[in-house]
């Protein structure tokens, strides 16, 4: 087998997803899936295509200009899977907000500044669950309580600017979970928050996931956050999956030179006085992707001709551990570790 597949039991997954906008190849044959109750971490640096993979799969990237190919499969209650990319706009709307909940990066801009928290919570309830306004308002208070907002009956009448950043993100989580979705898409939900608030948000999502059995897709550039939360991790680089494994395997046997670079670049307590390690260079321009390995320009382990001219396939190194690199043999890793 030279490629991964979306498992037939997956709550949500993308299969061979490619996105092109103009001359830029944003995503190239990305495949991953998340099971019910599981957390999938998607990591990569800015521009690696992390957000694009979920936004394009769920119809939040306008087509045109984007050209999206592949499949985005959502598990149905009867055990079948339906492809979001072939759905009509109306069918997609019935999925978004109802079966897929979203939390975005910056809660100070993601909430509508002119509407109360209540209105932003109730509109989805009224539309998807056909709740009456009074019923939806009551549910809104319960949802705020669920995400740990003190004095929810009062807070629900607030406008976003009257809440702190952490509270706003809790409101976003409450909105995302309001219609009891099967999949929660968290697109860098802690990036814009203080470190202490980050931990709170991670805890809330983790405990709610355990309670509700939601599948979570957690997108982040922060391996530390994802490592403490995810069951499996997908590493994206240059619009491709470069490594994918369960979290223990990835932390212990990381094999792609890029993943190794990401780990090396993590600041660690107790390693004071040293300069922070960086991966030199910058990500490839999606309009001019190299013909060979997308990481070629920055790779310290590259083998000259093959890596430059031939695109490496995704190879299964161990059980459910996939790597896209010619240089990622365990031996080589040991040699450089």
């Amino acid at each position, binding site marked *: 087998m030279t490629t991964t597949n979306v498992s037939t039991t997956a709550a949500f997954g993308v299969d061979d997803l490619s996105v092109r906008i103009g001359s830029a190849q944003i995503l190239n044959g990305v495949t991953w899936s998340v099971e019910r109750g599981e957390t999938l971490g998607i990591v990569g640096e800015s521009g690696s295509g992390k957000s694009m993979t979920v936004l394009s799969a*769920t119809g*939040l990237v306008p087509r045109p200009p984007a050209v999206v190919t592949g499949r985005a499969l959502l598990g149905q209650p009867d055990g079948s899977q339906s492809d979001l990319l072939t759905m009509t*706009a109306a069918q*997609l*709307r*019935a*999925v*978004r*907000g*109802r079966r*897929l909940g*979203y939390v*975005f990066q*910056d809660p100070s*801009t*993601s*909430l*509508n*500044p*002119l*509407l109360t928290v209540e209105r932003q919570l109730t*509109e*989805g309830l009224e*539309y*998807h669950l056909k709740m009456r306004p009074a019923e939806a308002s009551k549910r809104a208070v319960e949802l705020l309580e669920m995400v740990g907002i003190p004095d929810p009956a009062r807070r629900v009448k607030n*406008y976003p*600017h009257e809440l702190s950043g952490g509270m706003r993100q809790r409101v*976003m989580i409450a*909105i995302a979970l309001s219609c009891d979705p099967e999949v929660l898409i968290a697109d860098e939900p802690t990036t814009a928050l203080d470190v202490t608030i980050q931990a709170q948000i991670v805890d809330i999502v983790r405990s709610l996931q355990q309670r509700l059995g939601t599948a979570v897709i957690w997108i982040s550039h922060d391996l530390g956050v994802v490592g403490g939360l995810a069951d499996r991790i997908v590493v994206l680089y240059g619009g491709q999956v470069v490594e994918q494994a369960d979290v223990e395997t990835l932390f212990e046997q990381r094999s792609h030179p890029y993943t190794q670079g990401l780990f090396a670049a993590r600041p660690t307590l107790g390693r004071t006085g040293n300069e922070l390690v960086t991966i030199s260079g910058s990500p490839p321009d999606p309009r001019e992707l190299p013909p060979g390995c997308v990481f070629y320009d920055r790779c310290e382990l590259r083998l000259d001709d093959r890596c430059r001219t031939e695109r490496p396939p995704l190879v299964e190194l161990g059980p459910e551990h996939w790597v896209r690199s010619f240089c990622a043999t365990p031996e080589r890793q040991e040699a450089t570790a």
Partner: protein
Amino acid sequence: MTLFLLKRLGHMAIVLIGVTLVVFALIQLVPGDPVRLAMGTRFDPDVYAALRAASGLDRPLVEQYFSYLGNALTGNLGVSFRSGDPVTLLLLARLPATLSLAIASLVVAGLISFPLGIHSALNRGKFSDVVVRVISQFGVSVPDFWMGIILILVFSTTLGWLPPSGYVAITENPWEWFRRVLLPAITVGTASGAIMTRYIRSSVLESLGSDHARTARSKGLPERIVMSRHILRNALVPVITVGGVQLAGLLGGVVVVEVVFAWPGLGRLVYDSVAARDYPVIQGAVLLIAVLFLFINLIVDIVYAKVDPRIALS
């Protein structure tokens, strides 16, 4: 709210004192003696001195200013050199014509700018967007007097549909008022509408690409609700400010159009008074326009705070 109003009225008072100072000083700086000018060829030194004393022009400037200020506060803006009528009455007589033209123009501007601006933003880059942008560029660039003359030529002289000029009070005959206000309102409203079209277009574009619009879409709401509740509503809040500025501008700045259409408004009065060096009238008109301007700004601020909860009134 009350505190806010008091605060704002206090600010307005300070600005108004500034305006009176500037107006007073400007008049003093202009060469030429108004009394001498008014007497023309019938100059007589004794009468001249008596007239100067009667109008207080022989007193020190500071004293003149304070008596002017005191009178202005009680509604006495002096007497026109030209006609001898109280300035306050002259201004009040002109106010309805100016106000009704300004509001009609704003309505025209709104009727032009909202549909065009929103359509243009929603169809960004398409042919109709380009057409709207060309039209609005045209509207901004065309001089209003030229536009007025062309409209008169087409709709009055050639087609004979509307009277070329003149004014009938709206209280007297609303239909005749409407027939007469149409051409000047279109003339003035086109320019304002063109500016507002561009503003609305960019504001809607910004709102379309905003994070909260993405959130609204991620909720799976129908496009109709996403548009009305989350995109247009947010986009149009800042337009209140532009509309207010346009209205304030219309109240004081349509001099040329009022002249072209023989519209007896404030602008026309200022124009005639400048030509005749009728200083009390000029002073009074500038003061009135400043008051109107500040008043509209206050209303804009109150409305803004009502629709945008982030703006606190206190």
